[in-house]
Each structure stands twice: as C-alpha cells, then as structure tokens.
C-alpha cells in the first residue's frame, strides 16, 4: 500500500527534503542487503541525523501502522535490512558520530551508523580497540553489529558483540526513546541490554550504543598453516583447542576460497593447499611465544605442508585483509551465492567437511568455504548463476541439505549473521513452540503493533502475518551450541 501524502509530507518536515529518498531509482538501491537473493524496496528512505527525528518517525508510522525497517551499512547476510512489505526504511548512515570516548572507564558511546573499524582507529593510538570484528568491520555499522549480535574471527577469545555492549539507547516500536544498561557493568534489574542485542530491529531502532573498549595485547603472532587435506586442517583445529589454548582467532579457508582471495588482494596465501588455517595468538609476550610454538608443532604433527609466522605487522595485516575480504572476493568465482552460517560442535568439523563435499557433488554445485573453525561456525558459499533457474534450484537443495546435516550433528541454524528473512523459517528447527511463543510476546512488549522490521527474525504465522508457524523442534535438548 503506498504511503499517504500526509505521511510523506510529515517525514519531510522531520528530516528535510535532503534526508528523504523518494525517487524510484533511489529506493531501488535499498532493496537488498548483501543477501541479494531477497529484494524488497521501501516506499521511502529517511536518513535522520538525531534521535528525536527517529522518535518522530516511529510515532508517525505507528499511528498509520506503516512498517519500519532499520538499515546500517547494508552488509548483512540474512535479508535483514530490506523491506519485504515496503514501508519506511530508516537509514542510520548519517548518525555516524562518536559521542564520547571514556578511556579511564574503558568505554565509548557512539551513534549506530558509525563504521565498526572507525572506532578502533579512533582509539588505537591510545592503545585500545573494540573487540568484535566481523569480517565486514571496515564497512559494517556498529548499530548493525548490535542488531545481529555479530561475531567475527576474534570472537573465539573475546566473545561476540553482546559481550561488549554496556548500554543502548533504543527507540521502541511505541516511539519512546529508552536507555537500557549503561557504563556501569552490574546494574539493578533486568538485563534489557542483553535481550535487545540481536533483536534485529524488531524491538525498535538503536540510536546510541555504549561499548566496552579493551586494552591492546602486548604481543600478537599470526601463523599461517597449509594442509593437503581439509580433514587434516580440521583435526589440527581440534588438537589446538584440546591442548588448552584459546587462540584470539582460528580460521579455515579452502582451496576455492584461497584462489578468489589471492586474485583479489594478493594476500600471499599458498596456492596449492587444500586448506589453510590462520591462527592468531595474543596476550603477554612470553605466553604468546610459547603457545605459538606449540600451535605450530601441532600443525606439523597433523601433516602441514607449510607453517609460517607473519614476519611483521604489514604481513599480518595483509593476511587478515585477505581473510576479511573473502566473501567480497567471491565475485571472481560466481555472480551469486547462497551463504550458510550454521554451527557444528568443533569435534564434528572433519565429518561435516566430508558431508559438505558429498552434498556439493550430489547437487553439482561448487561450494567455497571460509569459516571460524575455532567456533565450529561454518560459512559455506554455494555458488550459482542467477540467470540459470535450474542451477538455483540445485543450490537451494544443497543449501537445505547442508543445514539439515549440521542440525543432525547437534548444530544450530545460525552462528553470527543473525536470522533475518533468510533463516526465520528455520527457527522452528531450533526452538520449541513455547520458546517461540515467548519470544513473540516479548517482542510485542517493545513493539505492540509489530511495525518494527516485520517478517524478520521470528517466523510468520500464515494466518495473521506475524507470529510463528507451530512446529516441533528437531534439535534435541542440550544440543551443542
């Protein structure tokens, strides 16, 4: 349903003509996030610069029951920042300021549109960093990271976004700006920050975030180990964790992914390896030296072809640049892909890798792999050409089979990308009716009219358009998460 003239006029009054994207061409480019399989252009995009503007927009939309979709940098992988039901998209890109850096209390307060890496860059000279580092950190916004509770390579040691968010300013679906949490870690009452992180815009719009800053470690060593077989690499991962180490990051890439990366950033990954591990250790110098020796030894014992330590910061940065740009480099392999985010127990890595290869062969699709091996978080990219409907069907079938295989091994449907539109249908695999019902009621407490990012996160009910589809969970109780 097109928006009313009065609503558009009111929106323009709030954000000004320059803060409103009304043209067809302008709206079109907002129809997808990085998951281009899903398309849905908003009826209008508002680009506020202040919280009070967000409040005014939400109140207007609530009065007319118009859906609202928040969007940061649009780098999400789940069809979260697109508008399947149209409505008003709120682009937070112009709310990108650092509001306060409080080094004595090791925290900073930022606007949601601030790019993740810009925060670390702002405090690096003082010896601090913001730990959550999704691979998209050079472009993704902190608001988006909070919404999806994003992970990243270094979350193995440092924890995911929620572990680093101290407080939020949230404009709820009722149009109220509320403060959740704050600088002090242990606050009385409900941990509302905790439930708002990862809510994917279904509770409201995050308009400010107070995050923890960490002191940069004394020493960092990055090891690259290459293997002739992906199973060897998987076993090395298990052995490193079993040896009692918690590397800062423990990443795996397969041959196809390495090829795309090498063509892209010339990051110097070995050309002939079937799999590469990127192992980073950080902390006090003596500990890092001892652990990196041990990790290297484990890789050799598991049949590594090559184990090398990055010589300097420049080489280390280049290796990480290659890794973090992996998904973006896939354009060198295929124009489109489906991307999984499933998690399996770490011990199942070699098994799932064999299964994955078999699934690819069965459906005649190429699968490139890059994943957070230390967490057992897989990111298989199933490549296809969107001009070939038959290949798309095979890719979708492979995708489904792969997800089921992960669940059967006691895994989960998503590790760090969030649920969005893409995985909402998979949630009943994970949660019982009662669990989903409870989440749905919780969401209503923040957003009674369910205007906030509708259709995302929670599976919709066929009858009422919002809610969930009753289904028995297929994940056994106590499954490894």
């Amino acid at each position, binding site marked *: 349903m097109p928006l009313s003239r009065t609503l558009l006029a009111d929106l323009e009054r709030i954000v000004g003509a320059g803060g409103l994207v009304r043209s067809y*061409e302008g709206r079109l480019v907002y129809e997808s996030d990085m998951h281009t399989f899903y398309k849905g252009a908003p009826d209008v995009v508002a680009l506020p610069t202040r919280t009070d503007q967000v409040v005014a927009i939400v109140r207007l939309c609530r009065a007319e029951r118009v859906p609202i979709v928040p969007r940061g940098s*649009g780098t999400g992988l789940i069809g979260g920042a697109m508008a399947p039901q149209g409505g008003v998209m709120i*682009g937070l890109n112009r709310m990108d300021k650092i509001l306060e850096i409080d080094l004595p209390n090791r925290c900073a307060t930022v606007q949601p549109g601030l790019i993740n890496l810009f925060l670390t860059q702002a405090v690096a000279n003082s010896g601090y960093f913001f730990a959550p580092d999704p691979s998209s950190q050079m472009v993704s916004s902190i608001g988006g990271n909070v919404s999806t509770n994003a992970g990243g390579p270094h979350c193995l040691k440092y924890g995911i976004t929620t572990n680093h968010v101290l407080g939020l300013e949230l404009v709820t679906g009722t149009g109220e700006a509320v403060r959740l949490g704050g600088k002090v870690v242990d606050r009385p009452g409900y941990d509302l920050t905790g439930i708002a992180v990862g809510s994917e815009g279904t509770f409201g719009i995050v308009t400010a975030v107070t995050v923890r800053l960490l002191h940069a470690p004394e020493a960092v060593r990055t090891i690259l180990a290459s293997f002739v077989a992906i199973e060897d690499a998987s076993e090395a991962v298990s052995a490193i964790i079993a040896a009692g180490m918690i590397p800062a990051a423990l990443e795996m890439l397969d041959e196809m992914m390495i090829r795309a990366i090498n063509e892209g950033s010339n990051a110097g990954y070995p050309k002939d390896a079937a799999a590469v591990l990127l192992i980073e250790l950080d902390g006090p110098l003596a500990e890092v030296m001892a652990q990196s020796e041990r990790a290297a030894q484990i890789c050799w014992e598991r049949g590594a072809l090559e184990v090398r330590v990055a010589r300097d910061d420049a080489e280390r940065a280049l290796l990480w640049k290659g890794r973090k740009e992996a998904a*973006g480099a896939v*354009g*060198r392999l295929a124009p489109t892909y489906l991307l999984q985010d499933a998690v399996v127990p770490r011990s199942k890595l070699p098994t799932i890798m064999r299964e994955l290869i078999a699934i690819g062969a069965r459906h005649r699709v190429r699968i490139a792999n890059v994943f957070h091996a230390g967490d057992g978080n897989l990111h298989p990219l199933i490549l296809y050409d969107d001009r070939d409907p038959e290949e798309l069907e095979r890719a979708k079938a492979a995708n489904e089979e792969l997800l089921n295989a992960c669940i059967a091994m006691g895994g989960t449907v998503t590790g760090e990308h969030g649920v969005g539109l893409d995985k909402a249908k998979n949630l009943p695999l994970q949660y019982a009716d009662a669990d989903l019902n409870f989440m749905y009621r919780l969401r209503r407490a923040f957003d009674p009219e369910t205007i906030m990012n509708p259709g995302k996160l929670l599976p919709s009910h066929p009858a009422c358009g919002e809610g969930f589809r009753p289904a028995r969970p297929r994940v056994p109780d106590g499954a490894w998460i």
Partner: protein
Amino acid sequence: MTSAFRGPDAPDVEEIRKCVHCGICLPTCPTYRVLGEEMDSPRGRIYLMRAAAEGRVELSETFRRHLDLCLGCRACETACPSGVRFGSLLEATRAQLRRHGPPPKHRLLEAFAFSLFPEPARLGAALAAFRLYRASGLRALVRAIGVLRLAPTLAAMDALLDEVPRAGPLPELVPARGRVRGRAGLLTGCVQRQLYPQVNRDTARLLAIAGYEVVIPTGQGCCGALELHAGLVDAYSARARTLAASFPSDLDFVVTNAAGCGSAMKEYGNRLPELAPFAGRVRDVIEVLAGAELPLGRLDLTVTYHDACHLAHGQRVRQEPRELLRRIPGLKLVELGDSDLCCGSAGVYNLLEPGIADELLELKIARIAETGARLVAAANPGCLLQIASGCRQRGLDVTLVHPVELLARAVDAHTS
C-alpha cells in the same frame, strides 16, 4: 525486460555482475562519505547500472544525477575484493547517457569547460585574461561587490587561481646527462603546461639526470581524459589518436607528471586496441624516477603526501612516491590521514559540483592540518590547485608542490 543501454559502448554486463554487493567500497567513496546514501555509493551506482541493463530503470534524470555526482576517483576499485573495474563501467554508462539520456544538469558550463581545458592555447589566452583581471583590480572589485556569491561555479574558479605563472616553451629535445639509459617522451599536459610550467621543466631535467633523452613534441595535444570521464567517447578517441601519433614510436617511455592524464593514457588500449603498444609505454614520472639513481642533497623539510586518485587508484602507484621522497636526506615524511580520499578536484568536478567538492576539500584540509607539515606533495595539477586554494581560503600556511619539485630542489642542494 529490455536493457536501457543500447548500441555500442554499453557497459559490460559481466563486469557489472562481478559485484557481489558486499559494500566494502562504501567508506572509501567520497560521495558516500559526504552524503551517506546508497545511490551515491559505488555499490548503489553499480546496482543502478545493473537495473538499467535489466530494464528495471530508464536512463532518467535521477539515474543521471547519481552517476554525475560520482567523482570518478576509482577508490572503489582499490577497495573491491572482486576486482570490479568501476572506472570503465562509469565511462561506458556516461557514454550511454550522452547518446540516449537526458542532458547534463550543467550543460553550458560543461561545454565551456570542455572548450577551454583540453586546448592549451585557449587556456593560455584565458589565463592571460585572468592575469589582467587580477592585476587591474577588477578581481578585488568583483569580490567586494559579492557578485561571486550568485554564481558558485565562477566563485569556485576564481578561488582556485592565485598566482598564474607565465609559461615559457620547453625545448623539443633535452639530452641525457651521463650514461644514457633510454629515450623518454614527455607529455606537457594542458593545465600542467599553463599553470605549473616549472613541474614540466623539473620533470624534463630529472629525467635527463636519470639518463633519459627527453623528447617533447611541440604539436602534442590533450590526452582526452576529461572527455572520456564525461562519456564523450568520440572526442576522446580523436584526441587519443592524435596524441599518440605526435610521439615517435621508438621511445622507451612516454612520461606524464599529471596522474589524470597518465591513468587515461595507460588505458588507451581498452577502447582503442591499436593504441595498446603506445599505452604500454606510458609511465608516471614517479615510476621512472623510482628506478633511477638521483644525486639528492639535503632538504630539512617536513612533508606530507596526498595520493592523487588517478595515481593511487587509477595507476596503483602508492609506495613509489613515498619511497622517492624518503630518499631525500633530511626530509621527514609524515603520513596524511585519508591520504587517498579525493580532494574534490576530479577534473572539472569542483567547477560543476562546488558543494560536494568543498566538503571533501574541508576534510582534506583538516587532515593536512593534523599533520603539522607545511608542505604537501601531490602528483596531479588538479589536486595542487584545489588543495592550495582550500588552504589559502582557510588561512592554513601550507605550500603545495609536485614531488618532482622537491626532488629537483634536492638535486640543486646536492650540486650547490
């Protein structure tokens, strides 16, 4: 779903499809940094091109506006992990807009700029008139009355120019000094020739010292870059052919000291395969000097370096200028934050879109001020003009130089 693109010069759909929508280009894009909107980002522009190729959008006014706002800096190419050649997609799309799209917003102004800048003789005459305007006191009058406020573009042009040197001709041949390493042609450029004649003189001299016999054809014209970037491909092709023909075919290198020209010339072969051998010989002066021995004396200076877009992004020459400058004894090179973010000059962009250009300039000047350096080196005349004018207007006591000017001074310091 018929494509909105037609006939020759349609953007390469396969190239468009290499974009996987990751968005890594966004923060490196000057217009995205200023405007914060998707349709004025590389990802958004590629999406619009794709939509046009798929028949989802027309080559409308709005479509044109978002493509016109692009500075063509190609920072997105440096950022792109999938290697999308945005520059050539932009050129092709703009060529389509010329043929099938609505007229540009600044048609008259653009026509004026294109009749002036690529024609050194006319540019020379215009600059002579400007000298008169300045010397006669008319400029002070015009500024005092505030006429320029009514015409942002004229104001931008007026602000860009300060001193206008008198350009003397260069000899047609400069012999190599010492051991001969080869023969190099020198592109004198349009703006460079008229506004920075000393940069051309220093370039010829340094090449000679580096062992190159320097050939400087008098009849050489414009490289055509301005027209290519605007989608005027026929005019560009004619200029490219004429320029290439004006140089002898037995040169080892054809050397430029203007990043924008060099970038366009190195890519002549993309559209004009017969010019590929010529394009293969094109080098920026910095690339040639990086491989040469120069007798450099001491210069006790603190310098910062601004990456000209078409050197850093267009030609991927980033380390060489820094290494060359560091070779000068006593010279302290401090890194400039956002050094490869466009200064807003971008050919004639600062004249056509003074608003956005000025915001970018503001950012650049703020970063320069942070370095504390009093000298900024940049290897492109457009950047030199733009940044110098920005510093002047904001009262920042900073001098702009081409790196070859510093190298020439260091050579002088060695000999004296």
